[in-house]
Structures are given as C-alpha cells and as structure tokens.
C-alpha cells in the first residue's frame, strides 16, 4: 500500500524568498512521485514527476524536487517565490492502473 504525507498544511513565505514544501512517501516498491498545483477554482496542473531517472527533477515555473530514497522524501523547492505561486500544492505517489495516491495538500501563501 502507498501513502503520502505532506508535512505542512500551510506554508507562508515572503515574495522573493525560497519555498520548501515537504512530502514523505511510503511505498513497498520504487514509486513514481508527482507534484501538482491547484489554483483557486481551477484544475490540477502537473509541476513535475519522478519516475526513477535523475533524482533531481526540474519542473515548470522554476520548481524542482529531489527524490531521497534514504529519507523517503520528495520535497518541492523554488529559489524565489512569486505572488502567482500562491495556490494549493499536492504531492502524489503511484503509477499504473491503480492511479495516484495524494497527500492532503499544502496551502502556499505568499506575503508581499
């Protein structure tokens, strides 16, 4: 069975400062891992995915994530936050016909 834990329900940063959104996973096998972003009243947009290639994954809009098997983590980072980054972020694990298992989400707030 897979599970995904997003360690922070809310994260608040100032514009121009780094962003760190934390995600731990539990899986009995080497998982595929994903980060999605959801802006208010919008659908889910894929930021990046890890599928057992390079452990440092670069995504859209300056986001990246590092897969650390020893820590079972897949944290999302961005060097400099922008106001448009304010949204809900979801970490997910899975692959195949079973679909994705999502974390409970992290609400990112950007302070001006």
């Amino acid at each position, binding site marked *: 069975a897979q599970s995904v834990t997003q360690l922070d329900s809310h994260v608040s940063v100032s514009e121009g400062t780094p962003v760190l959104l934390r995600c731990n996973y539990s899986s009995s096998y080497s998982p595929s891992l994903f980060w999605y972003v959801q802006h208010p009243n919008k659908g889910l947009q894929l930021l990046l995915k890890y599928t057992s290639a390079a452990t440092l994954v670069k995504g859209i809009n300056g986001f990246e994530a590092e897969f650390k098997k020893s820590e079972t983590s897949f944290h999302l980072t961005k060097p400099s936050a922008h106001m448009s980054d304010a949204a*809900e972020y979801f970490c997910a694990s899975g692959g195949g016909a079973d*679909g994705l298992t999502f974390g409970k989400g992290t609400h990112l707030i950007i302070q001006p």
Partner: protein
Amino acid sequence: DTAVSQTPKYLVTQMGNDKSIKCEQNLGHDTMYWYKQDSKKFLKIMFSYNNKELIINETVPNRFSPKSPDKAHLNLHINSLELGDSAVYFCASSQVLTRGYTFGSGTRLTVV
C-alpha cells in the same frame, strides 16, 4: 484542443436525483480515472478503468457507477444523490506505461 474535458463544469441538483458527468480524452491514453475532491481539498481515487479492467475503490458507494462507451470516454453516473456527495469530481487519463497523468478541469457538484 482540450486533452481531458469534463461536462458540466458546475452541477447543482436536489437530493435524491440521478445525475451524470461526462468525460472525454483525446490523448489516446489507455486508462481513465475518476477522483473526488472533498471540501477539505482531499483528493481520493474513486475508479480506474481500461478496456480490460475496472478497479473500484472499496469505499465508494454503489450509487456511483462508471460507464465507458469507448476507450476515450468514462462517464460517472450517480444515483440517489446525497448532501455528502457535494464535491469537485475530476476525471483523468494516463498511458499506464509512461505514468503520465492528465486531469480535466473538474466538475463542481452541489447537492441541495
């Protein structure tokens, strides 16, 4: 061209009614899914379906049933709607071997 399209975008209906949400994908993917996002924004898979197999999340009430007329469509039928069914429902598709998922923009269902 919209890759995964859902209709309607908004659906308001009374308790006890039966309703359907349609989903179509033009990506040639082999598997389609329905997810439910509750009021706390938690996303949970309801069904996954390819031409050979329907996988049902055991927590989904049998009032919910997926119908797939062909590989590009997976509609969601809901009988005897209840207040607790109010949520945003997302359709998604994937090509299982590549583990790439694409989501529709969601259908906001409100049961009154």
